[in-house]
């Protein structure tokens, strides 16, 4: 289970950091309200939420690396897969990104989160299968 654990840790770091650099707020763009006040766009909140999902995912990866009990590994792999689904849902359904197809959140953040989320799900499922053979 060392390799899946390392992969999950790497992916969690990417999920937590990448959206921070590829959102419209970081590019200096914001929504201007009628009263002139500027507020962050949707993608900024997706980036914040990604960080909130990445931290528990990182912990899951570290726990998988150091756990030896079959049941624990199985439970951690399941949690990893669910967090992977959340990573995909954040930019696609739960919060979303900006409308403009040329914005950095659409060009990089959204595809990167979907790609990383899919990898987290796949690696967690592989981990789930491997955990069936792990020694208690």
């Amino acid at each position, binding site marked *: 289970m060392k390799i899946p654990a390392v992969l999950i840790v790497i992916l969690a770091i990417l999920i937590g950091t990448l959206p921070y650099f590829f959102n419209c707020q970081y590019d200096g763009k914001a929504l201007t309200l009628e009263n002139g006040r500027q507020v962050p766009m949707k993608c900024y909140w997706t980036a914040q939420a990604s960080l909130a999902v990445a931290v528990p995912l990182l912990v899951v990866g570290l726990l998988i690396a150091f756990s030896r009990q079959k049941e624990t590994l199985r439970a951690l792999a399941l949690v990893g897969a669910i967090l992977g689904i959340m990573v995909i849902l954040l930019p696609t359904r739960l919060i979303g990104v900006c*409308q403009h197809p*040329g914005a950095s959140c659409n*060009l*990089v953040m959204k595809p990167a989160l979907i*790609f990383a989320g899919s*990898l987290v799900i796949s690696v967690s499922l592989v981990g789930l299968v491997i955990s069936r053979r792990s020694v208690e």
Partner: protein
Amino acid sequence: MTLLQLAWKNVVGSAFRSWIVFLCVLVVTALLFSTVLVIRGAQDSLRLVQQRLGADVVVVPEGTETQVETALLMGQPVAVWMPRENLDRIAGIPGVAIVTPQLYLASLANAPCCSAEMFLMAFDPQTDFTITPWLSQNLGHELGLGEAIGGSDVFVPYGEENIRIYGYEIDLSGNLERTGTGLDTALFFTFETAREVAQVSRTKAVRPLEIPSDSISAALARVVPGADPRLVALQIVHDVPGVAAIPSSGLFQTFHRQISGLLRSVLAILGITSVLSLVLVGLVFSMAANERRRETGVMRALGATHGAVLRSLLAEAIILAFGGGITGILLAALAIYLFRNLIVLSLGLSFLFPSFPSLVALGGGGLVLALAGVTLAVLPPALRTCRQDPAVAMRE
């Protein structure tokens, strides 16, 4: 125990070796497959734009060929003009069946009078043969004053009812199918609407939209059946001063050359990477075969034939190549699909993701290549192992 079960036990039993072979195949297959997808997608996209334009000859002001091609492919706004009277001259050339004018305009960036910076294309509905047939098929009516049709990526901004161009509210009637080019972010409307926008822009826009009178940006011509578009293009250049005529076969040649150049350099790098990876796979299996000489000696002593030992080693390699190949192809396809817009912007190429059947065919080809490559790399150490004398092998 069957041959496959034996091979699978060996794969699981030597996890480190298996991971190395698996990752080598995965990386090489993913790189090769993604390169083929990008090149294929760029070629498909160019073909689709040529079909969408539907013109046999495109006539533009002399010296602006590349600018116009870039505008059509990458959606970069362009301002080129030639006299409208050229239309009559082109129409009078033998071999020309129909000719239609187009205006190429651009909205303003970061201006409150424009929703977004866009490439705007105005056409004459009376003679147009590029947008109008699509309109009658999909919308059921022609575009009226103040109406527009957008590329696949054009949308009405959130919270608004229309698209604002130079302070003029344009009603988005529908979207064209995706082409993977700049046309996906372009807005198409009639000459009448263009003139109306120019009129309104004088009072409502940060900067007025200037359309020189009696000028057009390009003329698209269709030739009569049997006429050679290249000869007609030559005749147009000869008879109409100050224009360049590009036959459809010569359109986007700069981009075709760019794709060919990219293909050559990437394939050279990938060729070297593939050979090195296959050598590594061969070495790993050679080391594994040496480690397992006693094991294969015992198998031979128990009655296994040369062929059975060879098949078990090859089955092991094929399992790893299959797993690595499939994973590499799936990852590459997913990555290219998700990052397609970024690829278009970074490489400066138009790109259209291949259809599912074409994707499956390309993936199948990639997998066969991966399996063949790994089998070839593993064959020499496998042959050496199965040919050795069992008694000698067991003693060592």
